[in-house]
C-alpha cells in the first residue's frame, strides 16, 4: 500500500483561513433569531401555528405598547418639557393665555421647581428648614453604613439609629421643650420628675422583689432596673429641656418630610412590636397566643384606610377626657399598629425557618427563653427575613400616601394641594405633578427592592 498517495487526486498542503460562520449562527442575527423570531415561526402543526400567531400578536403588541409609553414619556417630559418660567404663562398654550404654541403638550417642570421646597418640607417655616436638613443628613449618615455589609461599627451604628437619631430628630423637628404633666403630684415638669423618680423606685423595687422570690440576688436586679429607668428618664429629660429652638407644630409638617416621618416611625415601632407579637403567636401560653393571634388577624383583615379613619375619629373617644393627640400622632399610631401585624407575620416566617435543633441547642447550654431568643434565635431569624422586612417597608412607604385621605399633607398630598394654586394652573399641571410624584416614589421603592434582592443573594447560602 505504498502507492496510496498516487491515487489521491488532490491533497491540501496548507490550512485554509477560518471562514466566518453563517449569519444565522452568530452575532446580532443569531441573537434576534434565538430571542425573538424563533418563538413565532413554528408552523409545522396546527397548535404550534396557533402559538406562533399568538406570539406574533403579543410581540408586536408589547413592542407597540413600549413604543407608545416611551415616546409619550420622552415627548411629554423631555422634548416638550418647560424648565424655566415664573408662572402659568410658561406652561399654557396661546389659546389658554400662555406662550406655548397650539397643540403643545409637555411637562411643566418650572412649576415643580417653584414648589420643590413645599414638596419636600411642606409648610415648615422657611427659616427653620435647616433643622429638617440636619435630620435628613443624620439619617442618611446613619443609614448608609448600616446598609453596607462591610462597614464597621455595626453595633454602635444600630444604637445611633435606634436611640440617638430618633431623639435628635424629635427635638430638631418639633423644637423639643415638650410639656409633661404629672398626674398626682404638683404641676409642671418638676412634679413630673418627682413622680417619675418615685415610679422608677417602685419598678426597681418590684424587680428586686421578683429576684428575691426566685431566690437570686436582689441587688443586681434592683440596679439594672434603675439603669433602664434612668435611660428612659434621660430621654424624657432631653426632650423636656428647652434648647431655644422655635416650636414647630406638626400641622405645618408636610411633603417628603411627612412621608418619611410616617414610614420610618412606622417601621421603627413595628419591628420590635412585630417581634414580640411573633414570639407571642408561637408561645405555649394559650392566653398570650390567643391575644397575639386576635391582634394580628384583626389588623391584617381590615384595610389601612379604615384604620386611619378609626385612629382619626375613634381614637380621641378612647382616651380619657382632656387627653388629646395631634393628628399626625394619631395617624402614626394607626400606621404603626397596622404594620406591626404584617411585620409579626414576616418575623414568624423567620422563626419557623430556624431548625428545631437551634432551639434545643440553646436550651441545652442552659440559656433561658429570652437569652436564647436574643443570642441564638432572633439574630438568625431576623437575618433570614431582611428581604421580607424591606418588602414590608416598601409596602408601608407606598401606603403612607393614604394619610392624605384623612387630611394630612404627605408628599402626594402636598402635590395634590398645589393644584389649587392659580399661579400655575394649566391643563398639564396635574399630569406633571403626578409624573414627578410617580418618579420620586418609584426611585425610593425600586432602590429598596433592589437592596432587598441584593441582601437575599448575599444571604443565600444554598448551593
Amino acid at each position, binding site marked *: 500500500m505504498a502507492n496510496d498517495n498516487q491515487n489521491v487526486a488532490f491533497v491540501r498542503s496548507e490550512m485554509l483561513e477560518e471562514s466566518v460562520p453563517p449569519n444565522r449562527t452568530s452575532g446580532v442575527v443569531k441573537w434576534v433569531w434565538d430571542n425573538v423570531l424563533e418563538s413565532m415561526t413554528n408552523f409545522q402543526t396546527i397548535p404550534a401555528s396557533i402559538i406562533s400567531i399568538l406570539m406574533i400578536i403579543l410581540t408586536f403588541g408589547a413592542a407597540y405598547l413600549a413604543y407608545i409609553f416611551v415616546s409619550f414619556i420622552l415627548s411629554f417630559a423631555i422634548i416638550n418639557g418647560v424648565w424655566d418660567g415664573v408662572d402659568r404663562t410658561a406652561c399654557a398654550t396661546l389659546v389658554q393665555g400662555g406662550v406655548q404654541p397650539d397643540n403643545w403638550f409637555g411637562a411643566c417642570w418650572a412649576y415643580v421647581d417653584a414648589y420643590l421646597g413645599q414638596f419636600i418640607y411642606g409648610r415648615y417655616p422657611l427659616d427653620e428648614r435647616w433643622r429638617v436638613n440636619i435630620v435628613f443628613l443624620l439619617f442618611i449618615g446613619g443609614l448608609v453604613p448600616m446598609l453596607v455589609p462591610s462597614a464597621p461599627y455595626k453595633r454602635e451604628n444600630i444604637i445611633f439609629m435606634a436611640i440617638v437619631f430618633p431623639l435628635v430628630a424629635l427635638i430638631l423637628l418639633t423644637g423639643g421643650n415638650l410639656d409633661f404633666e404629672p398626674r398626682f403630684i404638683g404641676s409642671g415638669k418638676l412634679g413630673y420628675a418627682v413622680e417619675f423618680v418615685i415610679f422608677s423606685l417602685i419598678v426597681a423595687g418590684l424587680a428586686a422583689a421578683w429576684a428575691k422570690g426566685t*431566690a437570686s440576688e436582689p441587688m443586681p436586679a434592683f440596679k439594672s432596673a434603675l439603669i433602664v429607668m434612668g435611660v428612659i428618664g434621660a430621654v424624657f429629660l432631653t426632650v423636656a429641656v428647652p434648647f431655644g429652638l422655635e416650636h414647630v407644630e406638626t400641622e405645618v409638617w408636610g411633603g417628603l418630610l411627612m412621608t418619611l416621618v410616617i414610614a420610618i416611625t412606622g417601621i421603627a415601632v413595628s419591628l420590635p412590636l412585630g417581634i414580640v407579637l411573633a414570639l407571642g403567636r408561637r408561645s405555649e401560653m394559650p392566653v398570650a397566643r390567643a391575644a397575639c393571634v386576635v391582634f394580628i388577624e384583626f389588623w391584617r383583615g381590615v384595610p389601612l384606610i379604615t384604620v386611619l379613619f378609626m385612629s382619626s375619629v375613634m381614637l380621641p373617644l378612647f382616651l380619657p377626657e382632656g387627653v388629646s393627640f395631634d393628628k399626625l400622632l394619631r395617624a402614626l399610631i394607626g400606621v404603626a399598629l397596622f404594620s406591626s401585624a404584617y411585620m409579626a407575620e414576616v418575623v414568624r416566617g423567620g422563626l419557623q425557618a430556624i431548625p428545631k435543633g437551634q432551639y434545643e441547642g440553646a436550651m441545652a447550654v442552659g440559656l433561658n427563653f429570652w437569652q436564647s431568643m436574643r443570642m441564638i434565635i432572633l439574630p438568625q431569624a431576623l437575618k433570614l427575613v431582611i428581604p421580607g422586612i424591606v418588602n414590608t417597608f416598601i409596602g408601608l412607604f407606598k401606603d403612607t400616601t393614604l394619610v392624605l*385621605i384623612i387630611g394630612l399633607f404627605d408628599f402626594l398630598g402636598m402635590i395634590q394641594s398645589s393644584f389649587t394654586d392659580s399661579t400655575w394652573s394649566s391643563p398639564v399641571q396635574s399630569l406633571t405633578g403626578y409624573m414627578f410624584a410617580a418618579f420620586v416614589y418609584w426611585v425610593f421603592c425600586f432602590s429598596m427592592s433592589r437592596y432587598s434582592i441584593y441582601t437575599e443573594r448575599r444571604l443565600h447560602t444554598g448551593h
Partner: protein
Amino acid sequence: MAVSESAVIAAEKPSVSILNDQKVRGQIFQVILVIALVWLGWSIVANTAANLRAQGLPFGFDILKDTAGFSINQTLIEYSETSSYGRVYFVGLINTLLIAGVGIIFATLLGFLIGVSRLSSNWVISRVAYVYIEVVRNIPLLLQIFIWYFGVLRLLPQKREAADLGIFGFLNVAGLYLPKPIFEVGSSWIFYAFIIGVALAIGIRKWAVKRQFETGQQFPVFWTAVGLILGLPLLAYLVTGLPIALEYPTAGNFGPRGGLRVFPEFIALLLALSMYTASFIAEIVRAGIMAVSGGQTEAAYSLGLRANPTLRLVVIPQAMRVIIPPLTSQYLNLTKNSSLAVAIAYQDLVSVFAGTALNQTGRAVELILITMLTYLVISLLTASFMNWYNRRMALVER
C-alpha cells in the same frame, strides 16, 4: 425500676422557689396579661361611653333604620333618598364586591399573561413584562388611581361629545355607555340551562375519570363540557324566542343617552386596581412556575407524555399548589385596596357608609365598627378557605 428512680429524684428535689418553675411563671404572666387586657378594654369602653355622653351622642345600632336622605349614583339594588342607612350599607357593600369581583377577574387575566410572558424565551415580551412589573408595583396605588382618574380619564371627550366605539357604545369624560341587556320573560330559562350545563359537565367529568381508570379509554371531556356549558344556554335562548335584547345608547345633543352607564370613578379604580394587583400576581405566577423543577418535565417526557399533557397534568397542578395561597392573599389585598375608592368618590362601602353616612350622623363608633367588621369577615372567610385548601393540597410527607 423507672418508677422508683423517678420517685427518688422527686423526693430529693431541692426546695427551690416555685417562681423558678417555668409553668408557674407562665401562669403568672398570663394572669397579668389578662388583667392588663381587661383593664385596657374596660377603660376604652368606659372612656368612649363618657366621651360620647359628654358630646351628647347616643350609642346604638338603631341608627341603621334612620332615613339616609342622600343620593348614590351607582346602585345595583333599589335605593332612593328615603332609604335607610342600613340600605346604604348594602348598596356600598355591593359596590365594593362589584369592583372587587371585576377587578379580580381582570387582575388574574392580566397577571397570568404577564407572569407567563416574563418567562418567555422571547426577549421583547419578557423585557416588556419585566418593565411593566417593576414600574407598576413600585408606584403607590393611590397615586395610580389619581393618575387614571385626574390625569388620563380627564383627557377624554367632554360631556356633550363622545367617542363612538361602535358596538361597544360611547365613551366620554362622564363615563362609558355600554349596550344594556334587557331581560324579558323567559330569560331565566337561560340561567337555568347554564346551571344544568355546569352540573352535567361535572357529572360527565366524574364518569369519564372513572371510566378511564377502569378501561383506559379516554373521553373528550373538555369539548363536551364547552358544548354543554355554552350550548345549553344558547339552545334555551333560541327556544324561548330570543328573550335578551340589547339597548344601545344613542348620541344626543347633551351627550350619550340610554344604555348601561359605567361611571368614570369605576373605570379609573378598576384600571388602577387590576393593573397594580396584576403586577404582583405576575410575580407569583412566575415564582410558581419556576418552583416546579425541570426534572418533573424531564420525568414526564421520559414516561412518554407529550408537551401538552406534561404541562396540563404535571407542571400546572404543581405550580398551582405554590401559586394559589399567595394569589388568594392578593385577591384579599385587592378587595381591601378597593377602599381607596373614597379618594375619588367611587361609592363603595367606605365611601358611602364610613364617609357620607358618618359625616351626616356623626356616629363614628358604630359605623366604623361595622365597616371594619365587614372587611374582617371577608378576610376571615377567605383565610379559612385558604387553610382548608392548604390542608387538602399539602404534600403528604413521610
